[in-house]
């Protein structure tokens, strides 16, 4: 039964690590169950872009809240997180793109997020390696980047400093009062938080999660080649296309001077191998905006699997009808940004405290049916 942990987190990605740190700081006895490397799943295949995203009001609320929390948290985790507020530059190729830029600026303004519209020459001055015929862009200075696997490890260390224990192992089943291990024994816990990304569906097959595979590539070091995270303003249409494979221009300057290149999206691919055709499409999209990129060396490419939900919002809260089972998964491509807000919202619900932002849009009950028992 519930002898053992107050809370057992299944999964030590950045979301699980953030939940562990939050619950341990609240005084709970926390265990973290992870068979592999900390932050070795989708966390290692995220760009670490800490970004306010406005696909929906609920998405903007959670990303903005989480971004503010990162701003407080990241410096205290140490320089190893490589947190820098480089800003995002949403790049518009043409007049339609500029209309999207102004719409985005207005939505940000209503949410209290600064954003500056740049015309073509101003964009060229801000990023001289962008191709010269672009229409302009939107500079969002409060966005940033960090190195997500390191941030996950540091969050888990913070949890450990508050008494949390890491257990190397795999949950193969859930029951009230704990998680079942491969040998049939039960790791007891008052609540189990499933934060295993797309693999959460292996424990809970009814979860409406689909894997969205993404490719990344990284170049050699060329300091100063770009200065902001550069994303095409049509990114939302590309990123959340419900069906079919897509790529979008999304390139990030790493503190080392390397360029981290995204992004691609493919539904329901079985394997994690790099697919040359998809990688080629993604790199072509990047080179179309940054022609000089083609002359640089790409030193590594890899993939990861995002956990996508039908409404593009994560699952944060109790699993309907299964007392003691909680969810922190389904973050799609925003898990690095929203890890902090997820942890706060989840902890508030578990501890019966008022959440800082409304928790309803992210409750699993919206997609799983049944009454949420909080």
């Amino acid at each position, binding site marked *: 039964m519930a002898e053992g942990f107050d809370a057992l987190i299944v999964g030590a990605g950045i979301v699980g690590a953030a939940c562990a740190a939050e619950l341990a700081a609240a005084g709970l006895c926390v265990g973290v169950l992870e068979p592999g490397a900390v932050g070795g799943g989708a966390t290692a295949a995220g760009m670490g872009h800490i970004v306010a995203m406005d696909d929906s009001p609920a998405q903007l609320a959670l990303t903005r809240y989480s971004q503010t929390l990162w701003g407080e948290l990241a410096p205290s985790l140490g320089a190893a997180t490589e947190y820098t507020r480089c800003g995002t530059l949403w790049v518009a190729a043409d007049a339609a793109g500029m209309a999207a830029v102004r719409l985005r600026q207005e939505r940000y303004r209503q949410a209290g997020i600064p954003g500056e519209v740049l015309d073509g020459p101003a964009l060229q001055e801000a990023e001289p390696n962008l191709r010269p015929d672009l229409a302009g862009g939107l500079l969002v200075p409060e966005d940033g980047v960090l190195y997500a696997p390191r941030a996950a490890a540091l969050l888990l260390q913070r949890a450990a400093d508050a008494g949390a224990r890491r257990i190397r192992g795999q949950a193969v089943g859930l029951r009230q009062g704990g998680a079942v291990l491969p040998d049939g024994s039960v790791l007891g816990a008052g609540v189990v938080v499933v934060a295993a990304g797309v693999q959460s569906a292996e424990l809970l097959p009814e979860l409406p999660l689909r894997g969205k595979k993404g490719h990344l590539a990284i170049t*050699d*070091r*060329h300091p100063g080649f770009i200065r902001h995270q550069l994303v095409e303003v049509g990114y939302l249409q590309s990123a959340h296309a419900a069906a079919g494979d897509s790529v979008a221009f999304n390139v990030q300057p790493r503190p*080392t001077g390397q360029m981290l290149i995204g992004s691609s999206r493919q539904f329901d691919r079985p394997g994690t191998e790099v697919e040359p055709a998809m990688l080629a499409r993604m790199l072509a999209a990047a080179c179309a905006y940054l022609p000089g990129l083609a*002359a*640089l*060396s790409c*030193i590594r490419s890899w993939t990861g699997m995002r956990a996508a939900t039908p409404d593009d919002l994560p699952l944060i809260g109790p699993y309907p009808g299964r007392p003691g089972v909680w969810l922190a998964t389904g973050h799609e491509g925003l898990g690095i940004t929203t890890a902090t807000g997820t942890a706060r919202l989840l902890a508030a619900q578990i501890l019966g405290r008022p959440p800082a932002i409304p928790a309803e849009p992210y409750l699993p009950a919206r997609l799983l049916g049944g009454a949420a028992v909080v």
Partner: protein
Amino acid sequence: MRPLSDVHITVNGLPVRVPEGTVVAAAVAAAGVAASRRSVRGEPRAALCGMGICFECRVTIDGRPHRLACQTPCRDGMVVVAR
């Protein structure tokens, strides 16, 4: 067989004369320069495999960074920077 002629390059500003066909990595070594580049943490790196695989020998050649010194033949007037 015609005799090899000499090729003149500079490595970190030092003039170096090598037989034609010499790769840059050998010229860097001949110039007495121990490190071709620095790692992210600032540690010195130098040619290891000599066959274009390990990427440790990267240098800046004529302003282009991260060229493989072990795979690039020296050409007259080449400016090599290895730090």
